[in-house]
């Protein structure tokens, strides 16, 4: 497509490139095409991992430009402004705040943090033109979803940091929305469906890193007492239910049965902690956890189905 139509700029999601990387890791097929008109690859829609960045850059020999924006903003918040000044790329960063966006990093108290310190990514109001004017037929939710946590700022819901050179690093969602091949989907919606299964007492759906799609969902399920079912059979039924309820794009494929879910004393399921266990990341025992031994049970159950995936 690039060669035939003399495409100058290609704009897609990292998932497309991970798909090619999987099939043609050395990029041998590229040699057959004339890409002399091709000037830049722009990626967005999900986090561009440094691995894919290096792969694409080395093969294509054009600038690989990550940029970050949200459905809400309609256009780039952080980018490498090729038409103004092209900056050298730092892998993992979408580069600098786009003119019009006053991007800040705040701690949970609403104080601005220093360079390199991770926190909540916010944008000082007013937002530039083109961004969401409100939520349709729901002004209250516009205020409560985006504008109320930090007065005078738009809350992006993403976490990250800004380094001493002004490069913005977006690390991922703070809430429970996962990004599957560029589609933002709510794990809460999937949980509702999984929980509606007749044998499921309680469940949690978490997002795991996926080499191809960026993220994928995994269901942790507590069975109703006295039920006896095969996990394979249950998994098949849940796949079917999520497919019908949300659509094939949810990519729900995996279920693990656990005896209970880790929770805070107030009953909030510790999704972040389970995500860390499944990803093999270090985590801090939440101070509010109800029963710490529960985490070991979850770790054992995850191990049985191959999580965390061993890094090669």
């Amino acid at each position, binding site marked *: 497509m690039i060669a035939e139509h003399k495409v100058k700029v290609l704009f897609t999601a990292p998932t497309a490139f991970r798909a090619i990387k999987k099939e043609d890791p050395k990029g041998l097929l590229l040699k057959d095409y004339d890409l002399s008109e091709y000037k830049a690859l722009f990626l967005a829609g999900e986090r561009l991992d440094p691995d894919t960045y290096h792969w694409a850059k080395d093969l294509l020999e054009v600038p690989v430009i990550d940029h970050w924006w949200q459905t809400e903003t309609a256009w780039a918040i952080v980018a490498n402004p090729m038409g103004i000044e092209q900056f050298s790329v730092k892998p993992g960063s979408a580069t600098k705040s786009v003119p019009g966006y006053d991007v800040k990093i705040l701690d949970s108290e609403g104080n601005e943090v220093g360079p390199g310190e991770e926190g909540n990514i916010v944008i000082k109001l*007013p937002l530039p033109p083109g961004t969401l004017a409100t939520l349709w037929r729901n002004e209250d939710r516009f205020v409560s979803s985006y504008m109320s946590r930090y007065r005078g700022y738009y809350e992006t819901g993403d976490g990250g940091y800004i380094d001493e050179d002004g490069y913005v690093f977006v690390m991922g969602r703070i809430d429970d929305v996962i990004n599957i091949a560029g589609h933002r989907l709510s794990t809460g919606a999937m949980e509702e469906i999984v929980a509606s299964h007749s044998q499921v007492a309680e469940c949690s759906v978490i997002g795991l890193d996926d080499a191809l799609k960026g993220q994928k969902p995994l269901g942790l399920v507590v069975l109703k007492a006295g039920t006896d079912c095969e996990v394979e059979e249950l998994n098949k039924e849940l796949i079917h239910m999520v497919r019908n309820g949300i659509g094939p794009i949810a990519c729900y494929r995996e279920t693990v049965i656990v005896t209970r879910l880790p929770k805070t004393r107030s009953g909030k399921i510790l999704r972040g902690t389970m995500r860390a266990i499944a990803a093999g990341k270090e985590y801090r025992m939440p101070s509010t956890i109800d029963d710490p031994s529960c985490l070991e049970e979850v770790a054992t159950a995850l191990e049985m189905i191959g999580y965390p995936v061993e890094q090669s």
Partner: protein
Amino acid sequence: MENYQEVFDKSLNNPEEFWAEAAEAISWHKKWDIVLDSSDPPFYRWFRGGELNTCYNAVDRHVENGHGDRTAIIYDSPVTDTVRKISWTELRDQVATLAGALKAQGAEKGDTIIIYMPMIPEALVAMLACARLGVIHSVVFGGFAANELAIRIDHAQPKMIICASGAIEGKKQLAYKPLIEAAIDQSEHKPEKSIVFQRDFLQADLGQPGDLDWQEIIKDAEPADCVPVAATDPLYILYTSGTTGMPKGVMRDNGGHAVALQWSMKNIYNMEPGDVFGRPRMWAGWSAIPILSTLRFCMAAPRSFMKESLSAPRMQEHSGG
């Protein structure tokens, strides 16, 4: 060339001057009264008092400026073995004709219409036709299940649904019409009409009350002109998942959207008129953007990008046709 820091500082220190300058690149029916209305925070409205039409800016003015014969859209779909090139004049005529047909069916400024289509040029034509009439469109991704579509129908309350008979997903055909009928069964709000674009490989049964065939209604349609709308009027609603239940309907206005996207094409992407912007996947709502600045817009169906990159013999033949 100005450097980034200068531009960035100006945009924050004097946003009204900065964006008023950027707004000169858009054709306005009536200039704004105030650049930024900040009287009711956290609601901010740009270009209050201004009037424009987004479709005019995205299509008609390029024809009027002598670009009519140039290619506007390149559609390349290996899954259906199609490559189509559409010129600016053809695009304008298709959009104006569909807009006329929608108008004849009762669509008017301020109405909402849901578009449920795969990534084919007709999806773009439908979005632009809505914008032409001042109708607010909401694109619902053609892979969403019936109950998700039903939730969006109840929220957006569309007067009509514009859809395709189906799509090809991977190697399978997916019929859309049964999904839409199931959604309308579930929803409380009932759209008056469903306008179906029949695809060659899949004919939908148009047996429900209000079902209309796209190709039929455009036959004798009188082309419609662009209707000026307020800069602050909604252009589209785009649903995005929240953490709980009901998706959030992001409301985008006409004026700010046109100004910001026009600005970003040059300043972020460094695209000049006539350059080809490749877009193998579609984020709903983004498709109309590159064409604001006379770019050529190269659409490809989902998967085609991968296929093209992977099947060398096919590519040499004709890039997957």
